[in-house]
């Protein structure tokens, strides 16, 4: 069977950097840091008090009261991103197209805010009932299902939950389904909203969170900072996109998944390297074809050093030439939604020739001696990019994107 080509024809987002792709791209180009003091209930009982929150956001501006009874914050973000993506793609799916279209959304926590507030109601506030829609609101597939329902996508739809790799796994699976002829149009990406008391409290326990900033690859890094938000892309079979005259933002040409089969939290160089090499092999590209890598770059000592070792292993003598940045330094770690928002840094590089920087870089780390595009965005001609995601549990997913043509 001939494999189909798969292109990106639309993108949408709401994340700490902005409520649209245009705003997000501008913020990435300007090196804006959207990490700041958290505004959540019971903050005084947390030791971690910073995060990348979506600010100036009123759900009522986007959804009706009836809709909000069913939409957790992560579903709201996913629907807002999907709406922008479909509009950007210029797609108004008719009934027949809807049959061949689906949606795959990555999320790690699903409706975590709904869990948190419902537990608070029954345990802390002593209430004896919770809202009747708690179950459909908190389930991990709620975002995928509401996107499917809103746009009449009646083909294959599901959610993917692989912690910090959820978005890349989701996008990679949607890509594979179009490539193999299972579907023509797929909406895909990820969404996360864990910035609530219970969500942060759980993360505090692992002792990997920073109290002050996310500074990936900097020797004085102090850990990860959480963010929230969503990004959704329209993936389309190439001939379908070409025939309707769609603007092609990028072509997804490689994807690979590997597992460390090692430790539940510590990453492995081997698993990361095999995923990067696998994505290059899948794309039929040599390592020197890649000009920019959007790093997983969490700002933890464990990730940053392992990732740099893996890049040196795969890119060899070219490792020092390839540009590498972690936009988590700007928007925080969106956990299950992170790969999707970070893919916007890849489409920014491919469409605008701008490499989003790694903010907060202060002290060189000899173990991370690569070109991490420190602190300021850079102009560069980019035809090929890679996006890394390496999850707790040792589950890795890497995508390769090239410029649309």
């Amino acid at each position: 069977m001939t494999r189909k080509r798969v292109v990106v024809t639309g993108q949408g987002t709401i994340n700490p950097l902005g409520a649209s792709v245009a705003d997000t791209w501008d913020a990435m180009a300007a090196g804006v840091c959207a990490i700041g003091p958290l505004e959540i209930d019971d903050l005084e009982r947390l030791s971690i008090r910073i995060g990348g929150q979506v600010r100036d956001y009123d759900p009522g501006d986007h959804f009706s009261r009836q809709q909000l009874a069913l939409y957790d914050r992560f579903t709201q973000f996913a629907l807002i991103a999907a709406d922008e993506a479909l509009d950007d793609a210029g797609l108004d799916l008719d009934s027949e197209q809807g049959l061949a279209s689906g949606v795959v959304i990555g999320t790690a926590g699903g409706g975590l805010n709904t869990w948190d507030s419902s537990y608070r109601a029954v345990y802390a506030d002593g209430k004896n009932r919770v809202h009747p829609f708690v179950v459909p609101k908190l389930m991990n597939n709620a975002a995928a299902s509401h996107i499917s329902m809103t746009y009449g996508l009646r083909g294959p739809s599901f959610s993917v939950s692989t912690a910090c790799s959820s978005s890349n796994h989701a996008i990679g699976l949607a890509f594979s389904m179009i490539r193999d002829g299972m579907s023509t149009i797929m909406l895909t990406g990820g969404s996360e909203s864990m910035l609530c008391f219970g969500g942060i409290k759980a993360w505090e326990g692992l002792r990997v969170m920073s109290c002050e900033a996310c500074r990936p690859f900097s020797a004085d890094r102090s850990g990860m900072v959480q963010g929230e938000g969503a990004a959704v892309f329209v993936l389309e079979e190439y001939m379908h996109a070409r025939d309707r005259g769609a603007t092609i933002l990028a072509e997804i040409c490689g994807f690979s998944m590997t597992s460390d089969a090692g430790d539940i939290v510590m990453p492995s160089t081997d698993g990361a390297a095999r995923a990067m090499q696998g994505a290059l092999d899948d794309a039929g590209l040599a390592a020197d074809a890649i000009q920019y890598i959007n790093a997983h770059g969490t700002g933890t000592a464990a990730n940053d050093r392992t990732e740099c070792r893996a890049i040196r292993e795969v890119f060899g003598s070219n490792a020092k030439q390839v540009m590498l940045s972690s936009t988590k330094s700007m928007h925080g770690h969106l956990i299950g939604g992170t790969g999707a928002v970070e893919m916007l840094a890849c489409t920014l590089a491919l469409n605008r020739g701008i490499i989003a920087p790694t903010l907060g870089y202060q002290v060189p780390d000899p173990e991370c001696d690569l070109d991490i595009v420190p602190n300021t965005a850079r102009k560069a001609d980019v035809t090929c990019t890679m996006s890394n995601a390496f999850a707790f549990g040792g589950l890795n997913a890497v995508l390769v994107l090239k410029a649309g043509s």
Partner: protein
Amino acid sequence: MTDRIYADITRIIAEQAMVDVDELTPMTRVEDLEMDSLAVVETLFAIEELYDITIPFNANTMDSGNTMDSEGFDLSTISTIVTGVEALIADKGSLT
């Protein structure tokens, strides 16, 4: 160093490091116990729960060979841990 706190801490560390408590001495180096990152975090959690204290510790600022956390809690030996815990308990007492 009080005997009770020393006994509690060696018991917790022995359990996490999967060694006999008699093998531990005040001078035992934590890195020689080859505990993985989760075992270290669980050890601190167990000590915090026992004394209702908060131990300042960030896994990212504790590199190998440098066991002094940036916030000042010295995890290098059992003796330094006991001293640090005693200080945190004393601080707590001074607040109440």
